[in-house]
């Protein structure tokens, strides 16, 4: 019998604390892209609600909470994080396993928005990017998904293969912010 050991995308790279901000890897969970077929948006939303208790998020929004979250993931695409998708969803949407495809980290702490402002062009002000808001955008040179989880807490996702660059870029920005804040 072979023992095949699983590794997380950021293994050996995180956690990292500089100044008041910390980056940690989000423990791996099931991640499924849910892409509704033609005219199935409403039906999908109903099933999502009845099976997983989560409303389908509007563009730029995330719904649910830790353990079962639905994140808008681009044009007519939702990322379901946490639960194993109910089979009923497949009648209304293309489901694709993405559990291993993304490096998922959390940036927490006072100054987290300042760190992100060095890497992403999106408007991170409290009024514009509230808790539950999400964006597909760029992080330095990488395409990313950024979701605000709390007042000083963000979830950041980039392609798994870019985990090292992600950590490097975050680290550089965190050092700058820490140095500025003395």
């Amino acid at each position, binding site marked *: *019998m*072979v*023992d*095949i*050991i*699983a*590794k*997380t*995308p950021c293994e050996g790279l995180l956690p990292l604390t*500089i100044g008041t901000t910390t980056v940690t890897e989000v423990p*791996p969970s099931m991640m499924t*892209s849910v*892409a*509704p*077929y*033609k005219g199935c948006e409403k039906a999908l939303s109903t099933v999502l609600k009845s099976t997983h208790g989560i409303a389908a998020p509007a563009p730029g929004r995330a719904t649910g909470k830790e353990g079962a979250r639905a994140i808008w993931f681009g044009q*007519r*695409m939702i990322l379901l994080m946490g639960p194993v998708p109910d089979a009923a969803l497949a009648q209304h*949407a*293309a*489901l*694709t*396993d*993405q*559990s*291993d*495809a*993304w490096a998922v980290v959390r940036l927490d702490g006072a100054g987290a928005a300042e760190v992100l*402002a*060095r890497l*992403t*062009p*999106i*408007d*991170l*002000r409290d*009024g*514009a990017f509230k808790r539950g808001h999400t964006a597909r955008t760029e992080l*330095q*040179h*990488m395409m990313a998904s950024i979701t605000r989880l709390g007042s000083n807490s963000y979830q950041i996702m*980039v*392609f*798994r*293969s*870019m*985990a*090292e*660059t992600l950590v*490097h*870029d975050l680290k*550089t*920005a965190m*050092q*700058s912010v*820490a*140095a*500025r804040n*003395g």
Partner: protein
Amino acid sequence: MRVEGTGLIDRSSPVGFSFDGHLYQGFAGDTLASALMANGVGMVARSFKYHRPRGVMTAGSEEPNALVTLGLEAGQEPNVRATTQELFEGLMARSQNRWPTLDWDLLALNDLAARFLGAGFYYKTFMWPRAFWERLYEPVIRRAAGLGALSGKPNADKYEKAYAHCDLLVIGAGPAGLMTALTAARAGADVILAEEDTRAGGRLNAESFEVDGARGAVWAAEVTAELAAMGNVRIMTRTTVTGAYDQGTYGALEKLGPQMVARAGAPRECFWRITARRAVLAAGAIERPIAFANNDRPGILMAGAVRAYANRWNVVPGRNIAVFGNNDSAHRTAADLIEAGVHVSALIDARHHATCDLDIPFYPGAEVCNAHGRKALEAITVATTSGTQKIRTDALAISGGWNPSVHLTCHMGARPVWNADLEAFVPVAGAIPGLSVAGACQGDFSTRACLESGIAAGRRAAEDLGLTAPDMAAPMAEDSNYDILPLWSVPGRGRAWLDFQNDVTVKDVQQAVAENFRSVEHMKRYTTQGMAPDQGKNSNIGALAVLADATGRGIPETGTTTFRPPFVPVAIAAMGAGAQGAGFAPQRFTTSHKASIQRGAPMIEAGLWYRPSYFPAPGETHWRQSCDREVAMVRNAVGICDVSTLGKIDIQGPDAGKFLDFVYTNTFSTLKTGRTRYGLMLREDGHVMDDGTTARLGEQHYLMTTTTAAAGQVMRHLEFVHQCLCPQLDVRFISVTEQWAQFAVAGPKSRSLLNGLLDQEIDDTGWPFMACGEVSVGEMQARLFRISFSGEHAYELAVPSRYGDAVFRELVARAEAMNGGPYGMEALNVLRIEKGFITHSEIHGRITAFDIGMARMISAKKDCIGKAAAARPGLVDEDREQLVGLKPIGAVKELTAGAHLFNRDDDAIRVNDQGYITSVAFSPTCGHFLGLAFLKNGRARHGEVVRMHDHLRGSVTLCEVHDPVVFDPEGGRVRG
């Protein structure tokens, strides 16, 4: 020389610094310029072209003269303006453009030859012999003329870039900017107040008068404190807005303070991109000089700058100072100097009607027409109605009037308009969408007018943002007259400077006109006026006034050149922060990366990916040894190769098959579930875009594979096709490249290796060539594809990426136990060339399906992208270059990629070109080199001998043309 006074320096905090190796002392709050002045250092630079002694002229970022080099070695920064450089302990500055020293500069000889070196000199003199330009003239000129130099070493400092967003961006924190920010902030707007200086206040820090009963600087500090205490205002000092761009985006350069830069991990500068719904430009105005003979002598400064030095830094450029102006503001300089206890030797006012109450020698209706002294000003000659008179003086303060800082309003193509009352250009309304102008920048030259226009601008901005501003009244402040008499240059013998930074004189402009370069744009280019790093901040208006005079036109008819970003020089390191070295692009690592590195595999970059080139075994000293061994290993046993970098796209939906039929030349809707098919994809212009295999995983479920190089391009193409060309199709797709780690298991022993690993054994009946399906290894669910890029009996095993590292190690260990092992890109390339398989070396963008012998793959039964275009006669012409195989048969046994092909007896010249080689490899299987090439009418020329000629490497050999497939042409091994 330091004077008494309560400026903004801290006399209890001395700061040591050096200039050209001499140690000096200044105070906290000093700039390098004010500290040098305090130490009596008058000459700080040599001029660009004539190497004339130069001193500090201004007190701001418009400084043309006082450019110095800071720091040493890799950290050296040239062309730092001493006038904006904060003093810090240990600051080390050096003068520039002098040899051997600032005081004794040999190249000052240029000044003696000035009559030969005027504008247009280079164009006329260095015409011939032509070859001399690059080898002789240019190096000599480059050495003789110039500013500071870079270290030539890679940048050693950290720079940063950042983004900010706001409702209102206020550019400049003088009286107008402060009131704009205050008004809008009180209305509830989210405000960014950007200020170039180390503190807010603008001219209020430089002037002696009061606002609201308090000293201007004190009032400014109070307002700033109020703003800082509001939650909706962000004050960004040391931040120069450098450019206005589309969609309310502004570039800004922040130079962090010395204390902050000294901290570990701190950047030196930050380039900001600020997105603002509205912006107010309150950038103030820049005082302009008056041209007269030798007006560039050290000790001649702008009158407003002299007030700034006296009032803010408590320094003066001499014990004995004269003032020369054409407007009321010059009188304030005289008054402030008297207040500071300095002897004012003369107040020369070009206006005949001017009056003066001060107890100083006053010369109304007079002009300064010459300056004396070389390294320091000693005297001036004043022309009055009754003749000329020489006056001894250490320094001269000049005011030729003020130019509103319209620069940013020009950044999107608008030109400022002439205001005859102010004798200046002012911004035109609507120059930048969303941006309005306030204060001196729009011609409000009194403090009171600035405060009022600031309130008005803040109110307008708030209303635009849907907010209501509270009623605010402007505080009591100075509201004096300007009363300017135009005076640009004083006639007389000798060179009168217009552009101090590029050494352009009145004569140069007149010379341009004489040579018929009469338009302002031509004059600029002929004389280089305004083309120095300061972009002519001091000189543009003066120069075009002289041009207007010389051409007999008015200033409005002459027009003006405009300004481009950046407003101040910006280091490329700041704009590209984070992108230096490896930061240039993200690095993508496969799950087997660490294991490959541990085996000593050198990595090569494939797009953003890093892939192992080969895996050196003990005793191997050359890559070819490793490569040959790895090829033989795959041909005779089994090899393992990470192929995860190939693009994988998960495609689902009722119309998935139809969609694939449309993007691929061949048919996929007929593919059976559990089977894989090779597909060819064309661009709309009929050329090959990409190739790869696509597997049918279910009735409505396909998995497309792309090449590594074109993964992004194909994904984009699919999105385009679906969104724009056939939105009616119900199909959804997403990249799963990163989800699966995929490994090729190739070679005669591949199945036996897998059967030791998989939970369920596979055989030829269940898993024939091109089969695919699910397999498991314990808890791990995986996908297996029986496909081959080596021509061997081979599989690709795809596992969830989390298991990639472990599975790669396991596969390699099992392969090694069977006399196999890992193989890299080199061996992969050899294996596919032996089989005549193409990569993007072949399908490089100009190649059709016809060229690679796949014309029949364009199905006749259906339409597909590129089909019509591919059928154009020129794309199916028999004379086109077609894919062939080559082997060397001459004395030289090596083929080289990129070499061109010629008929055996033709000259190797362009018109005889028959084709070119795209890929080569030494085939250990055949024992000689193999090449893939495109050759005119190649398919009909198998067996023919052609000559390879590599002009670049100088290699020539004869080759025999043959079929691209050399190894196992029947394909028995792949099915075996």
